């Protein structure tokens, strides 16, 4: 489904991502992990076309999508979430989720403004889909709450809900568990499985090792921009290079 070949990004003189290769099959839960500053987030930005790679290609379902721009990537079916609690501050939960449907609207600009029949059908479909997504995330009761008033954990969910509303085939989750307590994390893990069962393939960039180990089917470990290991959670936990990289970074939270 996704094929990353020789992806390299150099900022000034600094190599953030170096010759990264990996592939992903539909329906698989893949995590990219690594110590702080290893280049995981940069990798996401490269895939989602928020950054142009220095060299290398990203192919999605056989099509080259390298550097075509974020909105174009989204139209191919890849949607990313953001670190921290990025949302549309002044919109209600439902408004934000409805907006996620934008790329599937078929009405023209004028049609939307003057409420053509097609635009109305778009709105009906968007509404139905939004209700489905909100239900899946257990946020139906919060539909009319303004985003800015949501608690931290729910804001994270909203980010995922908005991304899902765009009906992606592949969803890039940037640190979905950061700042969540263990209860919320447990629900988050379930949610990711649910998303996958719903037909959306998730990729995670994550710090929380316990969660990563329990949710992932395959893990790619990145250190200083390069891939140092790849395998199942069990294999990764045994991998000496990985342990070394993490100890080197004085990050002992590998969840062993």
């Amino acid at each position, binding site marked *: 489904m996704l094929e990353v070949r020789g992806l390299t990004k150099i900022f000034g003189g600094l190599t953030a991502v170096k010759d990264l290769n990996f592939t992903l099959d539909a329906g698989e839960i893949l995590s990219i992990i690594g110590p702080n500053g290893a280049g995981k987030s940069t990798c996401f930005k490269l895939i*989602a076309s*928020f950054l142009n790679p220095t060299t290398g290609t990203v192919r999605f379902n056989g099509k080259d999508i390298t550097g075509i*721009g*974020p*909105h174009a990537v*989204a*139209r191919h079916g890849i*949607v*990313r*979430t*953001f670190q921290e609690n*990025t*949302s*549309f*501050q*002044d*919109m*209600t939960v*439902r*408004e934000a989720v*409805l*907006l*996620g449907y*934008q*790329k599937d*609207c078929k*009405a023209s*600009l004028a049609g*939307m*403004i*003057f*409420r053509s029949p097609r*635009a*109305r059908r*778009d*709105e*009906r479909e968007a*509404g139905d889909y939004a209700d489905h997504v909100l239900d899946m995330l257990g946020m139906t009761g919060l539909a*009319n*709450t*303004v985003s800015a008033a949501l608690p931290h954990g729910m804001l994270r969910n909203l980010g995922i809900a*908005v*991304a899902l*509303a*765009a009906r992606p085939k592949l969803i890039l989750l940037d640190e979905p568990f950061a700042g969540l307590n263990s209860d919320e994390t447990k629900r988050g893990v379930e949610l990711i499985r649910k998303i996958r069962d719903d037909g959306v393939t998730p990729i995670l960039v994550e710090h929380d090792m316990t969660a990563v180990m329990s949710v992932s089917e395959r893990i790619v470990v990145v250190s200083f921009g390069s891939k140092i290991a790849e395998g199942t959670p069990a294999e990764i936990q045994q991998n000496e290079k990985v342990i070394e990289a993490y100890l080197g970074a004085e990050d002992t939270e590998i969840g062993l």
Partner: protein
Amino acid sequence: MQKTISMPNVNLPQSVQRSSALKPIGLGLLIAAAYFIAIPLVFGANGYLLNVFTTMAAVSFISFGVWLTFAIGRINLAQAGFALIGAYVTAILVSRLGVSFWICLPLSGAVAALLGGLIGWPVLRLKGVYFAMITLCITEACRLTALSFPALTRGAQGIVDLPLPGELSLFGLTIIPAFEKGARLPFFYLAGTLMLLGLGFMWLLDTSRVGAVFRSLRQNEDLASSLGINVAKYRVVAFMVSCFYAGVGGAFFATLQQNVYPTTFQVLDSVYFMVYCFVGGLEFVIGPLVGALVMMISFELLHEFQRYQTVIFSGLMILCILLMPNGILSVVNRSGKPEEATNA
């Protein structure tokens, strides 16, 4: 007034939306009818005051454009510049080629929108203060352009003695009779109609999905683009609509005053358009109208203070910002309904 702002959101289910959408439309038409009948009845005898309302309507029309650029999160100080472009397009076409005013009016808007699109495409990548400063420079650049090419614009002398709008007829049927010399009422109705059409379109736009997309751009462009929204395209669309309003408004003023000078619209006017939006409140489509009404009427009330007029006016403006930093309508709103219902 309050009813008109509590418009339903496009995001409500269609059934809910349609039934409650009728209310503000009905109320709006009622207020419009009252405006068209009552103002001429009360002030008809006093041509000066009627003119104040004419100017107010046209100025709020132009300000709707500024409001729209605020909606996408840009502080637009180029509005006076594009109004000047519209004014010159009409003045040149009417005076040199004898084109009918009724063709020039939309055409001026189209030219302004086109130029707005060309300039806006690169410039809209700038944000915040940078965008404000560059648009201010655009206004100034428009004035200098008018000064620098006297062959076309007659430079500082301006284009004067423009004819009044002629008859508008379709298939031999007179739709609008020619404007008579010295008659103020036709201009009052024309400005009022423009204002209502402008407001109506803005309202449709704001409550539609396009309005939601615009608001999303103000709040987070990255997030919007990650959802497949072509941020650059929507930004330019908003800016072009804004410039269209400016161009049409400029063409109207050129014809109302029957002349255009490079100073007809300048930086201070851009600032005032922005002030009207602020005073009325940026959250509401009707904000620019309320702002223009309040500001222009208070400016006229200060008329008898003669040379102290501007000092008191700007003093009041500062005081207004100090006391109600979020606009007049925000006060109305606070006592009215919960916050959630008004984030349109």
